């Protein structure tokens, strides 16, 4: 099953998106910053030249929009809040998975400027996911979205944060005991997509603000895999897209073309 995540910065990306989903045979399209005004326009665009129609699923109060090639009977909401949605994807003859999607507030957000406030939110959200996994009885969980932080940041790696590690071998240990509590790992393949020695762009987001310390490229948009789904995840399927169907998502300088979006789309697949 192929997934696409893209923060579209409230732009109507119409044809570009339908070109991506047709070329890469995407089954689940997940968008952040997709306003109410354009969500139906995007559905129209996705369904213009295909008989395998997309369905718009209910977002409730969450900040992401999910379109699926299958009816919403097969993707049930388990939890929704402003930043997190967790859906139970259960298709005939396929293993059920949990799809968690995050649009985490940026460091500019009034209520989340302070590291301790961000840390509390990450801790609450990750705890919520663990509760849901416990309730549904499995942890075949994939988490994707705009996490608004880099893979190496404290909240990404701490046990009560996302606990997302850089190698499969560590993730296969499943949990880590910290202060008498077991915390499950996520595998974070985005570590391997940094810099200019990779096939794709150096990150998913670029910024240059004249600060003393500047990373330039960031990996805000990520996919994290629980150990129980590791065998279903093929690293080769993970791509940060910079072009499709003759359209480039980056400027000649290589940085994202903000006229489309200041984020680049993320594509990945799970064999379920």
């Amino acid at each position, binding site marked *: 099953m192929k997934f696409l995540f893209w923060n579209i910065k409230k732009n109507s990306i119409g044809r570009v998106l339908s070109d991506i989903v047709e070329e890469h045979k995407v089954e689940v399209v997940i968008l952040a910053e997709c306003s109410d005004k354009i969500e*139906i326009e995007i559905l*129209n665009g996705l*369904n213009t030249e295909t008989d395998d*129609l*997309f*369905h*718009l699923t*209910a977002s409730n109060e969450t*900040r992401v929009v999910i379109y699926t090639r299958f009816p919403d009977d097969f993707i049930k909401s388990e939890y929704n809040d402003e930043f997190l949605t967790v859906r139970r994807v259960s298709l005939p003859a396929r293993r059920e998975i949990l799809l968690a999607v995050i649009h985490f507030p940026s460091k500019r957000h009034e209520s989340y400027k302070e590291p301790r406030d961000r840390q509390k939110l990450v801790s609450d959200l990750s705890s919520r996911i663990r509760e849901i996994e416990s309730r549904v009885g499995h942890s075949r969980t994939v988490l994707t979205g705009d996490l608004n932080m880099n893979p190496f940041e404290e909240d990404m790696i701490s046990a009560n944060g996302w606990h997302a590690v850089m190698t499969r071998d560590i993730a296969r240990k499943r949990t880590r005991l910290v202060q008498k509590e077991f915390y499950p790992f996520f595998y974070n393949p985005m570590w391997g997509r940094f810099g200019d020695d990779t096939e794709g762009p150096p990150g998913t987001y670029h910024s240059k603000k004249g600060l003393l310390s500047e990373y330039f490229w960031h990996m805000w948009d990520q996919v994290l895999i629980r150990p129980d789904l590791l065998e279903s995840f093929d690293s080769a399927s993970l791509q940060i897209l910079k072009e499709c169907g003759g359209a480039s998502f980056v400027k000649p300088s290589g940085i994202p073309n903000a006229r489309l979006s200041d984020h680049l789309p993320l594509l990945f697949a799970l064999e379920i």
Partner: protein
Amino acid sequence: MSTAIDDLWPVEIASVTDEVPPVTILKQQASLLGQKTKNIVEGKVETTLSDNEGVLRHTLYLVAPALNFYRYPLLDVEHKATSMYPAKIKVRSAEKSQKDIRDDIWDLQNAPADNEEEFKNKLKSVFADEETKKIIGALLAQSGGKKPPKKRIISDY
């Protein structure tokens, strides 16, 4: 010592008829509506047990995802759980309370459909009814235009 249990059931237990059940026909039509409207208006079928004991009720909803997933119950189909036909179609009224039966269509559909063919013919006439087309048209028009505000907050932070 184990004792063999006599199997009293007949050898042949299978579907009693080649006829397509009403719920299957409804689901097929629900899917076709989505195809026609590019999923701007979708059909959904839900089955409940009617107040009358032993009677299944299948409700065909029109769902407009762009209008906060507004659901309009277009019609109910009722039949005994133990037999698929006769099946009775009850059409909802948009003008009156949604619990009311639309008088004109109801007159047409009052006699239950005794078989698959009759059921399909009756469904076809409900779908072709001016009020049905008006309801679907209104949902389509509103889905393409301005929508009611949602709880969802989209911001660039």
